[in-house]
């Protein structure tokens, strides 16, 4: 009756198999070191770079000023209404990932992803304290002792220091770094700074120390997306089974027995170094982040047994098929330059160019007008009609700017501001807008009663050397006749 009852009593979740990757050296390991140093250096030093913007703006090169709603990136300053530049950057990042994936496969996962970089760093610390793979395995199985306790404490302490430094560096992107560092140490920083550091320290510690490859395999959506993005011309780390199989431990014995032997000596070096604990010889799989450490490990073994390198190597499915039947592989050029990658690159470059053009062209002076609604219009004693407007002038330059607001249309009408008087009013009002700020200017316009429901406009002009202007259209309203 019940089919369930016939199944074995299996749990829903497999227990995690410990991964103790062995240290390895080689060309890709060295490349990883270089990329790790660069990415970590960018992360830790960026908030401390200075950039002179004059007396009215912060002098931090990269600053996300949430309190004042400004984003500074070197010479670029983004206001909240220009958030589409951030959206553009995200689009570029997305298309850039497509471009990278379609050409060099999961290079992001293998080299630049923070999860990979910090896990790599944590594993290095682990090897420094616990020893290499075999020592780690032994220690993991050993019963608790003073030595194990000491080693574990040392390791977790080292991880915590790195994690705290990671979380600690993050907050400097959101405030003036030297000031915040002083306040943070003195205990004067905002609660949100401490809680952010606390949360990021915890996530770094847990993700880098314990979750590691599980983040890639179970939590991250990107490997799934990439699975759909890779094609036959994308670089992947491939075990060349047509060259390696059949595997053999005793090559000489097998040769004597007249058995066909492959280059793979089944030494498991590729498995031992894998940071995600997979066997690349089983083929392409979601756990492979293409960090290429197995290539380094295998190359070393091939050199020792006197075989050519590259039994495990970066190659494409297409070239793998060619090599399998003994044909020469296509050059790398055909992987990099093909319609798909060119389309991605054009898209990526187009978004970048549009943004650069927009940044070059954008107005640093904005005007908007909100018409008084209660009352919409006021009849004055000489019979003319007055409208009131709240003019908002946005000065996006980091210096005070003198501006004029000029009325267009409505022949004979005059405009004055709260401090001015109608008797001395003309066609423009002047103000000085504070640096990097939105000025509110309440102004009045008086026009003939016949001008009800006429279109008009206000033009703001900067009266300094740089100039610049903006215009807003309004409708002059009056009582129904």
């Amino acid at each position, binding site marked *: 009756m019940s089919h369930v009852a016939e199944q074995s009593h299996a749990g829903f979740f497999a227990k995690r198999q410990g991964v103790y990757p062995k240290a390895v050296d080689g060309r890709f390991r060295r490349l990883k070191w270089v990329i790790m140093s660069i990415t970590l250096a960018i992360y830790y030093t960026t908030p401390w770079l200075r950039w002179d913007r004059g007396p009215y703006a912060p002098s931090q090169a990269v600053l996300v000023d949430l309190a004042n709603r400004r984003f500074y990136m070197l010479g670029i300053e983004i206001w909240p209404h220009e958030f589409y530049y951030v959206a553009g950057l995200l689009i570029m990042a997305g298309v850039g990932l497509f471009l990278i994936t379609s050409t060099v496969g999961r290079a992001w996962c293998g080299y630049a992803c923070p999860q990979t970089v910090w896990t790599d760093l944590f594993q290095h610390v682990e090897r420094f304290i616990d020893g290499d793979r075999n020592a780690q395995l032994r220690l993991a199985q050993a019963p608790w002792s003073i030595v194990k306790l000491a080693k574990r404490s040392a390791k977790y302490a080292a991880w915590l220091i790195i994690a705290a430094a990671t979380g600690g560096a993050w907050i400097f992107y959101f405030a003036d770094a030297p000031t915040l560092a002083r306040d943070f140490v003195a205990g004067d920083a905002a609660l949100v700074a401490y809680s952010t550091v606390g949360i990021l320290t915890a996530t770094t510690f847990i993700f880098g120390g314990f979750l590691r490859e599980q983040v890639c395999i179970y939590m991250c959506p990107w490997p799934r997306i990439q699975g759909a993005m890779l094609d036959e011309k994308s670089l992947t780390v491939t075990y060349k089974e047509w060259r390696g199989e059949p595997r053999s431990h005793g090559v000489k014995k097998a040769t004597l027995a007249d058995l066909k032997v492959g280059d793979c000596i089944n030494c498991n070096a590729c498995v031992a170094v894998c940071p995600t604990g997979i066997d690349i010889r089983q083929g392409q799989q979601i756990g492979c982040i293409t960090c290429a450490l197995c290539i380094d490990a295998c190359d070393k073994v091939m050199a020792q047994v006197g075989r050519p390198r590259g039994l495990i190597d970066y190659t494409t499915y297409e070239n793998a098929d060619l090599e399998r039947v003994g044909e020469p592989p296509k050059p790398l050029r055909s992987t990099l330059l093909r319609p798909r990658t060119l389309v991605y690159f054009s898209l990526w470059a187009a978004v970048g160019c549009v943004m650069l053009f927009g940044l070059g062209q954008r107005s640093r002076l904005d005007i908007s007008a909100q018409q008084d*609604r209660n009352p919409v219009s006021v009849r004055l004693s000489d019979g003319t009609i007055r409208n009131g407007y709240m003019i908002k002038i946005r000065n996006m330059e980091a210096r005070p700017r003198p501006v004029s607001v000029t009325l267009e249309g409505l022949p004979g009408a005059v405009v004055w501001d709260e401090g001015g008087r109608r008797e001395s009013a003309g066609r423009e009002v002047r103000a000085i807008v504070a640096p990097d700020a939105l000025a509110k200017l309440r102004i009045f316009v008086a026009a003939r009663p016949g001008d009800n429901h006429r279109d008009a406009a206000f033009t703001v002009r900067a009266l300094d050397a740089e100039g610049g202007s903006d215009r807003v259209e309004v409708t002059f309203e009056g009582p129904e006749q």
Partner: protein
Amino acid sequence: MAENKRIDAPTGTETVGHEWDGIEELDTPMPRWWLWTLYATIIWAAVYVVLYPAWPLLDRATDGVLGWSSRGQLEQEVAARTTELAPLRAEIARTPIEQLPGNPTLLAAAAEGGRAAFRMHCVQCHGSGAAGSAGYPNLNDDDWLWGGDLSAIEVTIQHGARNPDHAETRTSQMPAFGRAGMLQPAQIEDLVAYVRTISRQQNASPEARRGRGLFVENCAVCHGPDGAGIRRVGAPNLTDAIWLYGEDAETVRASITNSRGGVMPRWGNRLDPVTIRMLAAYVHSLGGGEASAPQPVTPPVTR
């Protein structure tokens, strides 16, 4: 189908005892954390009932041992805000109103305070936008019955208009020319024509020419020889475009026949002097305020 309960081998859980076409249902117990959450909410509720007002009584609720109430919290917040604003109010109190424009920040703060007080005390007659209606002056325009500079507005708010029991109130009384028999209906028609001529609503006519003489005899003492009004007695300007009760002939005729005289409460006995000063600053800022001192020439830095 009642009692087919059994232990399901793979999961070790009891079934509920029902079976539909071979499909059975496990009677899986509630997760522990869920159960504990339920208990925690029960404890929370018990603690809450003790600490905060909870059980409704006839006219109120039980006081919690913390003594908290939403009304009390409001009072605290109001008190805190009052303390915060005390220095500002003190500064407004010691600045004579005609000197407020010399301190634009203080003037703006006073006007903001006035905006709030206006919503409370003035909108009932003058409207939420201070645009008034027939009989209730529009405070946005540049026509003032009793004066439109800061001090004049402050005095008007302080003492009101035509308060019978207040000596200092703004007051005057227009005669009911028609009802009192001082003018005949035909004479009133001539006056209406004249008044509508000097306010440029209609062209000169024989009636208006006759009305001119009547005006000089009966009206000029308050409205001035040219009809431009006299603020000392609150007599409106009859030559401009603003008519408190309406500019059409019928309304003007009714005004002359029955007289007009709006009443405004005095606020001096209800509001403190600082609030009155702030109200004056707000009303003055609506666009029609008149200058009481020379204005600064340099454009202000606005932020």
